[in-house]
């Protein structure tokens, strides 16, 4: 046996998951989890597709009795929800989780346990949503679940609760995955892979992860508020009690605007990867395309601006928004031209992935044109809420997201599975999908122009819509058949396709230098990068320091699952660190959250409380050092002391960004209602008490100071942490006393509801801070001199800064606003937002249906 082979064996042992069921529930490796995301999301694509077939079957002829109105509402709601929440984003995250570590030359994600947790949240959330089919109360409020339709009055059954809880669960998974991917990309690139040498797919994932971190919290908040209204009667959306149903639309679209680009950007990243490999040329104007990706991400944020106003929006202000949307055409156009130029310069190989890419470009450009038509306000007036809109957004979503995903799955399948899918079957699937798609959705434009509304379960014989509908349905069947052919092709290849070579396409990226499928540890010797297409260029010679680090990391020597961390911009080696191995606690935590949610769902307070306690227990169990308490960090590959923060610190920072966005959305809700309600606080309520609330804030801030001392002075660490714990609990006690003694009930008026929610948010943050102190204390006592412990201390300090900031902000808002408003509020009128369309631009607005 050669030295290299021994090392391979040693690495394999270090990185392998245990066999059998135990291994299945405790696996954390990015490839296992990534594949699970992909397979599960594909299953949801098939479910959502089946729902679409049922919808189209109902519409095949006038006055059809196949589905009744109620079933129709449920099916389009579940179809839209499944496709948007359970298929598109998880599929993209799964591909990224699997591929990005390979593309940037590292062994695993920075927080593998968190990643596994995300998967279980996604799976349980998806199951919860679909469980509603078994109970008979299926969500039926549309995929954007507008209030008041989804409020307790109009939707008394549990359907909407399934929607809210399931979607929240899935969005938690989305946030967790985004955080993981962002830290991965920023801190674990191969030495030499500076930002401007990253593959474009990695760029797109970086931008889209950043967007998820700030966009998903808004919908999580909106759902929490609605669930509080439905279960506890807190009237956030109830205009009779100071609430406002339009608040839902504002919060939902703060998420919904970027959501489209969150899916589209990675799709274009896939396209760039496929085009480069299948034309055998690097993408022309790489830097332009990278700049375009970032520009699209930022501009789609800017579209939020128009949600910052609760008052009527004048035409000019609307135009500014429309101009901002249209500006996205510039960077989008840059990308399209870069792909076309690359194809013209190279020698395209018309493989299945390339065909799907061409289908994408054609369809996406057409969708863009109809999008401009929809965005033009007067035109929108006629097509608004018609089938024209349905056609438009399917051009964007199927052409712009599904086609690229199909291209990417086929392209990377040999790498991920080690088998080659059949090209003939792949091309046949493309033919069916592409032709079927256009037959299905082109006629819907005409139907829309002829006045057929969306979301109606049938139509009369005399209106002249029957021919187009029949054609559309037949096209849908072709499209569905194409999807089945595609799926069958992959499934058969998985079973008994020809064995794939390591690099079947002659690819440019690092992923193609691993085995097919890759070894559990990906790279025996971590690669060093000197350009944008490492496989098409001579490998650079690493400097001594890098070379010796790589050699050390090739031999684990009992140091656990070691990885290399590099600097953020230039990707110079920074430090080595070990990540966690297999553990079932992420699953345990997700199940505990599931128990809590089910408790809420069936109105069982006891079950919910038990679940909440289990969540805390499982999460604490999970926070052991990577490799367990017995690992020996002194054997980690030796590098100079790191120049930058530990990865966990960056992870927490991004996590706090997401939590701050949840808190920010609560604040947004508070101010929105403050502006639109008559009387804030309502007459007779008066300003909130000052004494206990201020004492609580003072205690929290003092706790934060104590944590700061603990971080700076090692000898005072234990007492300072204990002191901080006492202060934190004192803050919680003062808060609890104060809230228990309120002069108003949170269910009487939106003021009380918003007040209690904000206070509750600050209390939850403080309580988690106390738990974090417990973890830090345990680390300091059991492993005083460890790098892990010093990382935990840095993390604790960061968290307590956040605790202090949160309590201070909440306190100021709650104390100041009632005093300045003089007790009778602004009482300004609210108008509709422009978003009854569902997807895309547009301006007119009233509530749907």
């Amino acid at each position, binding site marked *: 046996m050669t030295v290299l082979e021994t090392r391979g064996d040693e690495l394999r042992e270090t990185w392998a998951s245990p066999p059998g069921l135990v291994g299945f529930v405790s696996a954390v490796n990015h490839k296992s989890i990534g594949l699970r995301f992909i397979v599960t999301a594909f299953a949801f694509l098939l479910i959502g597709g089946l729902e679409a077939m049922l919808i189209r079957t109902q519409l095949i002829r006038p006055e059809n009795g196949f589905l009744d109105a109620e079933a129709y509402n449920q099916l389009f709601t579940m179809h839209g929800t499944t496709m948007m929440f359970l298929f598109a984003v998880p599929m993209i995250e799964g591909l990224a989780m699997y591929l990005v570590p390979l593309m940037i030359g590292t062994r695993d994600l920075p927080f593998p346990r968190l990643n596994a947790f995300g998967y279980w949240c996604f799976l349980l959330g998806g199951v919860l949503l679909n469980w509603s089919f078994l109970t008979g109360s299926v969500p039926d409020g549309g995929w954007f679940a507008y209030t008041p339709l989804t409020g307790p009055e109009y939707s008394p059954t549990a359907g909407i609760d399934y929607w809210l809880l399931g979607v929240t669960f899935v969005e938690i998974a989305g946030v967790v995955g985004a955080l993981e991917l962002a830290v991965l990309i920023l801190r674990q690139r191969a030495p030499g892979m500076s930002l*401007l040498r990253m593959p474009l797919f990695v760029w797109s994932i970086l931008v889209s992860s950043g967007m998820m971190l700030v966009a998903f919290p808004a919908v999580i908040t909106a759902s929490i508020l609605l669930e509080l209204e439905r279960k506890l009667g807190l009237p956030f959306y109830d205009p009779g009690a100071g609430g406002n149903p339009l608040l839902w639309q504002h919060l939902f679209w703060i998420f919904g605007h970027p959501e489209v680009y969150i899916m589209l950007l990675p799709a274009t990243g896939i396209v760039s990867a496929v085009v480069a490999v299948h034309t055998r040329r690097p993408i022309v104007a790489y*830097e*332009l395309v*990278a*700049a*375009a990706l*970032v*520009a699209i991400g*930022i*501009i789609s*944020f*800017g579209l939020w*601006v*128009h949600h*910052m*106003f609760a008052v009527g929006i*004048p*035409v*000019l*202000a609307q*135009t*500014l928004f429309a*101009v*901002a949307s*249209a*500006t996205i055409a*510039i*960077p989008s156009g840059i990308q399209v031209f870069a792909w076309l130029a690359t194809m013209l310069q190279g020698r395209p190989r018309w493989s299945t992935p390339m065909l799907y890419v061409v289908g994408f470009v054609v369809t996406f450009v057409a969708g863009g044109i109809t999008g401009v038509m929809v965005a033009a306000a007067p035109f929108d007036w006629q097509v608004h809420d018609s089938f024209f809109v349905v056609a438009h957004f399917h051009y964007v979503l199927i052409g712009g997201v599904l086609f690229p995903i199909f291209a990417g799955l086929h392209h990377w399948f040999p790498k991920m599975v080690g088998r080659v899918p059949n090209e003939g079957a792949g091309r046949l699937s493309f033919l069916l999908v592409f032709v079927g798609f256009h037959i299905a959705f082109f006629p819907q434009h005409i139907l829309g122009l002829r006045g057929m509304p969306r979301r109606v379960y049938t139509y009369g014989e005399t209106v002249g819509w029957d021919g187009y509908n029949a054609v559309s349905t037949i096209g849908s069947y072709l499209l569905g058949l194409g999807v089945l052919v595609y799926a069958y092709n992959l499934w058969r290849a998985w079973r008994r396709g020809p064995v794939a070579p390591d690099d079947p396409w002659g690819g440019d990226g690092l992923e193609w230098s691993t085995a097919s499928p890759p070894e559990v540890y990906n790279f025996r010797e971590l690669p060093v990068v000197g350009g944008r297409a490492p496989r098409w260029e001579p490998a650079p010679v690493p400097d001594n320091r890098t070379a010796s680090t790589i050699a050390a990391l090739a031999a684990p020597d009992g140091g656990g699952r070691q990885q290399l961390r590099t600097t953020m*911009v*230039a990707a*110079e080696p920074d430090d080595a660190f070990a990540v966690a191995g297999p553990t079932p606690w992420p699953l345990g935590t997700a199940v505990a959250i599931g128990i809590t949610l089910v408790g809420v769902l069936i109105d069982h307070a006891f079950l919910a409380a038990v679940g909440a306690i289990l969540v805390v227990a499982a999460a604490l169990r999970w926070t052991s050092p990577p490799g367990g308490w017995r690992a020996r960090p002194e054997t980690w590959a030796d590098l100079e002391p790191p120049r930058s923060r530990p990865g966990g610190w960056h992870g927490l920072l991004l996590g706090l960004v997401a939590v701050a966005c949840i808190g920010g959305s609560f604040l947004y809700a508070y101010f929105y209602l403050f502006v639109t309600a008559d009387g804030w606080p309502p007459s007779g309520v008066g300003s909130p008490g000052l004494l206990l609330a201020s004492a609580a804030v003072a205690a929290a801030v003092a706790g934060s100071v104590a944590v700061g001392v603990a971080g700076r002075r090692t000898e005072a660490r234990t007492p300072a942490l204990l002191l901080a714990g006492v202060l934190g609990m004192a803050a919680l006690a003062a808060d609890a006393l104060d809230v228990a003694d309120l002069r108003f009930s949170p269910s009487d008026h939106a003021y009380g509801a918003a007040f209690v929610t904000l206070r509750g948010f600050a209390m939850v943050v403080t309580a988690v801070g106390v738990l974090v102190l417990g973890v830090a204390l345990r680390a300091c006592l059991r492993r005083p001199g460890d790098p892990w412990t010093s990382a935990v201390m840095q993390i604790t300090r960061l968290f307590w800064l956040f605790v202090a900031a949160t309590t201070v902000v909440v306190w100021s808002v709650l104390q100041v606003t009632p005093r300045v408003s003089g007790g009778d509020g602004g009482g300004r009128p609210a108008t509709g937002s422009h978003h009854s369309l569902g997807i895309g631009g547009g301006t007119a607005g009233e509530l749907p249906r």
Partner: protein
Amino acid sequence: MSSVERRPWRRIALVGGPSSAWAAHLLVSYLLVPPACETTSVPLHVTTAVFAVAALTSIVVGVRGVDGDRSRPFAAIVLGAIFVLAILLQGAANAMVDPCA
């Protein structure tokens, strides 16, 4: 270590400046629409000019920060140019649409 790495704030200006200028321009323009209807649109146009200049300045400052090799921050220059263009397009909308409509 490259010169970019030693001057982080210049890089931040280069990447963050034009985009922030664009976002600020959007926000301020929104806020100025109602007063523009009541009195005059001049503040709107001044806003556009100010933020376009600010965006251009941050590009120039940022590029100067990368001594020697001027071609390197090409991607960032393109990014900045996209935002300058976006600001000017919004300025055109301000000039063409009646603020009272």
